[in-house]
């Protein structure tokens, strides 16, 4: 055990300064593509309209890369309603309703020592019965619709639903999103959203007035 501690000390601080400081290493193609030049673009997700990109539809496919470049700035989620429980710890439960695994992986990254969301008073719970927030990843498949509703029903109030990733928000190019099954209180864009975007969404949802 002692040697593990020494190893830890030798490595120094790995944890990001975000949200107090700037986010480092934001994945470029999770940020908003901005028009740089004129030319035909066929966006497979229908995310571009009048030269502007709707990040709730964008699937980070780079098909627009000849005329659009991502701005490199962390994308903010839409917080329709929050939960305002800043005085106690915030518990989340993730439900995978039909993902490709990458969104799950990015939510899981919040545990790693770089993002370490426990330092912000946030914790994963193993049951929706103890959750304040339901993080939904993936499209809503036929087989998971009941389980999604059941998880939501099992949560105590107040509770929020965080649609995480383009699939969950709008269905992307794969299926249908959360909308129509449950009210999505927070939308976190990206395919997948960067861990920063998820962390930022959790903070803003929790601290919403």
């Amino acid at each position, binding site marked *: *055990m002692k*040697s*593990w*501690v020494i*190893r*830890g000390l030798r*490595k120094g601080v*790995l944890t990001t300064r975000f949200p107090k400081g700037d986010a480092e*290493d934001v*994945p*470029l*193609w*999770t940020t908003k593509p901005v028009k740089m030049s004129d030319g035909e673009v066929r966006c*497979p997700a229908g995310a571009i309209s009048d030269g502007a990109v709707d990040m709730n539809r964008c*699937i*980070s*496919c*780079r*098909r627009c*890369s000849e005329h659009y470049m991502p701005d490199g700035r962390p994308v903010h989620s839409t917080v329709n309603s929050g939960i305002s429980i800043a005085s106690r710890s915030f518990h989340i*439960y993730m*439900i*995978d*309703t*039909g*993902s*490709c*695994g*990458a*969104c*799950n*992986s*990015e939510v*899981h*990254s919040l*545990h*790693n*020592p*770089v993002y370490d969301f426990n330092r912000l008073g946030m914790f*994963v*719970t*193993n*049951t929706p019965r103890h959750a304040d927030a339901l993080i939904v990843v*993936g*499209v809503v*498949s*036929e*087989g*998971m619709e009941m*389980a999604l509703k059941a*998880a939501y029903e099992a949560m105590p109030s107040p509770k929020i639903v965080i649609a995480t990733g383009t699939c969950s928000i709008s269905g992307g*190019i*794969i*299926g249908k999103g959360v909308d129509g099954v449950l009210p999505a209180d927070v939308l976190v864009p990206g*395919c*997948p959203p*960067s861990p920063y975007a998820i962390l930022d969404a959790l903070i803003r949802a929790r601290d919403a007035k």
Partner: protein
Amino acid sequence: MTEENTDVLSGAFKDIEAWNAIFRNGTTLRRMQENRLSLYENFDYIAGRAERGESGGKEFIYGPSSGGMLESIRFRMSTEGERISSLVPEFSFKNRSLKLGGKDTETALLLAERINGPYSASYSALFCGVAESILGIQPSHEVRLTRMLACELERIACHLFVVGRLCEAASQSVATAHIFGLREKILRMISRRFGHRFFFGLNDIGRIRTPVDFHGISESVDAVVNEFGDLWQHLSSSTLFIDRIQRTCPVHLESSVGPAARASGYSTDERLTEGLLPYSDFSFNFRKEYEGDSLSRALIRSHEIEESGSIIAQVTDQLHKADASRPASISDRRGEGIGRIESPGGETLLYLRLGDSIERAYIRSSSLANLQAFVRGISGAVFTDFAFAWESFGLWVCEMGGVI
């Protein structure tokens, strides 16, 4: 060319009334009757029917959404005391019914790279490789090397994830933090160089979509590999950790693939065949273990992290000045093709028939191929070993659903 081995069924799909079978190393479809195919013990798994089985006795249900699992899957288990006597995996809950058939190659590629996001480099390289061979497009050497590089970086990230999840299951919290920290380093490096942490949008038919700066990749990877080697050595001396994974979920199944197969003494690795990517131009040490338990699977992955580092060093040596973004030539050729790639989970198989659009596609993922091994190995295990068994296979439910 490696010879077809008709003892091992690699894939099977039905077209209207007839079944098409693909055998290990085989490059053609074989029409077969269902009664002959059902003699292969993995047929139900390969055909995606394994979840219809009976576990027998009183069932205990786990899932489909449960806090301990990363993805949604339900297990029906029969137990005798604290032992699992049998288990039926129900993996269709999250099935997205991905359909490549009827799509143009451009759209199908977007779906292919989202079959399993963490294996996206492998899936997109496989899809592009098979489509290119049908269309008669020869991508440049640089493009093929870049794909290989992406696949090896993906392998390191995924193997680190599996070992990290094993440590997490074994409550080795400090080791877990170190290993997930290393994986984050790799993902960030991938993101800086390739624009996306999971390589989405990188591969395109005949080309790489955006140029990549290869300078310094090998040094960054080396640092992670060395640090992991040190951590692994340390973990190996932890009896607490080793006791939990040694002799856990032992299994030997010839139809298994990837690290799971190599941990049971089988010499299968698509990187050793004349496949879609030029692995034969590079050297790496191939390793097998023989116990087939969770420890052997972890040993194989820890060894492969090091070997991928060595492949990356050799590849980037040739790549630092290459511009990989040359556009593809247009082709409207038609035809069919079978291709394989060694994803981090093992051999992944794709059959594609191209007409004006994709007429038929079939994918057999490594997770589907290895699910049977997990089910077999877990029988007789105590319930507390479940997590060490499951995590050691590194299975992804997202790629178990059929793709047509």
